[in-house]
């Protein structure tokens, strides 16, 4: 973001497809989702996944390795909208002030 006027493409053109990944929208976040494993259905048996489905920023990261389920957020892109917390059927996600 330190480029001068003559170091960026003309007229705001994006000449490198997919470069929106460089824009870390996590900086917009006022609240962050905090997840607890205890009651989460994904952790329990790899089901539900509503948070993953509804997240508008693909910031919920659900993984499985050798039958073990793990849960994480990509805070680079999580804007803290709270949709995951709202959708969670077991109240396993709480929003906390940044």
């Amino acid at each position, binding site marked *: *973001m330190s480029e001068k006027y003559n170091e*960026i493409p*003309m007229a705001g053109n994006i*000449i490198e497809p997919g470069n929106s990944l460089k824009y870390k929208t996590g900086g917009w976040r006022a609240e962050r989702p905090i997840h607890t494993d205890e009651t989460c259905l994904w952790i329990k048996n790899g089901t539900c996944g509503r948070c993953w489905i509804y997240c508008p920023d693909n910031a919920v990261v659900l993984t499985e390795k050798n039958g073990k389920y793990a849960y994480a957020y990509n805070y680079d892109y999580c804007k803290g909208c709270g949709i995951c917390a709202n959708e969670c059927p077991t109240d396993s996600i709480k929003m906390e002030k940044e």
Partner: protein
Amino acid sequence: MSVSKDKIKIEGLTGDAAIAHALRQADLDVLSAYPITPQTIIVEDYQKFAADGEVNAAVIPVESEHSAMSACVGASAVGARVATASASAGLALMWEILYCAASMRMPIVFTVANRALSAPINIHNDHSDGMGMRDSGFIQLYCQSSQEAYDTTLMAFKLAEHHDVLLPVMVGIDGFIVSHNVERVEMLPDDAAKKFVGVRTPVQPLDPKNPITMGPLALTDYYFEFKEQQDRAMQQVIKVYKEVEAEFEKLTGRKYGIFETYKTNDADIIFLAMSSMGGTAKVVADVLREKGEKVGVIRLKMFRPFPTKELAKAIGNAKAVAVFEKAMSFGAATNPLALEVKTALYGTKSRPIIANFVVGLGGRDVPPMTFVEGFEKTKEYLKKGEAPLYETLGVRK
């Protein structure tokens, strides 16, 4: 290399028809325009060329001027040579997209028969539409005659599409006064005109093989830098215009300059006006000179970018400048043209008196007597050593 005289075609053409012929010869790819009032005959004539198979362009008649300029931006984005036309309220409806065209750096040629804005509804000439778009980022060239309209339209493509510029150009003619009056026009042979205008080489076109995004979001972190780019492109325009015109002069022997000076060298009072009023001003200057008054005329062609330094130099040591303009900026200190002229002269040593006369709104005739009246007033102001910020002339009050 100039074109031999027997190849020049001479016809009686209105300003509209002259521009339509220039667009025909410029080998457009796309012309998109709203086909109904307040459209000009430029588009009517061009559509006839298209219907008769004289041009290869895709003519896109759309449902509004907002859409017309939008279609032009889209076509220009893929690298096409694009033109459109409008006037008055139609131009006003384009307003949002005029800014997009300029800031997305689309070299569109926009021919305009300058006309008054509503209300009351009025179809006649003034410069309210052109002045309304003056900050949009368009280059603005105002023409005095059908010949100049033809010549300027051809030159406009080379100016707009030049890689140091890449900005849209408005080519303005006075509605009805030039747009509908028939004058003698010399036209280049088609091949010579086509060769002069050349083929557009787009810098960064939309292309599925090399995908890019145009006109995306740019907020607090980048927007300002893109405006800096745009401003710097505008600063290249005068230089490029002079190059283009020099080339055109070689071909035709005609040139206009960014403004035209007439008997200004020893002038005490200079009339400054744009478009068709330039002709009237020159006639009045001649008569006043016969009576021993030292009067000259500057007829400004390029309003954007405003030739600040060049104009200050041309005004030189004149004691007063009488600015006649066909637009009003309601509530402003003075009116668009006079504002620019005053700014141009503020830093000069001589700092002549500036009188600003708003004339001709809604097509009110501006006869020679209006200039004489302005001259007499300017002489009085010279004696007093000051002039009012502006005043209206030719209105019942």
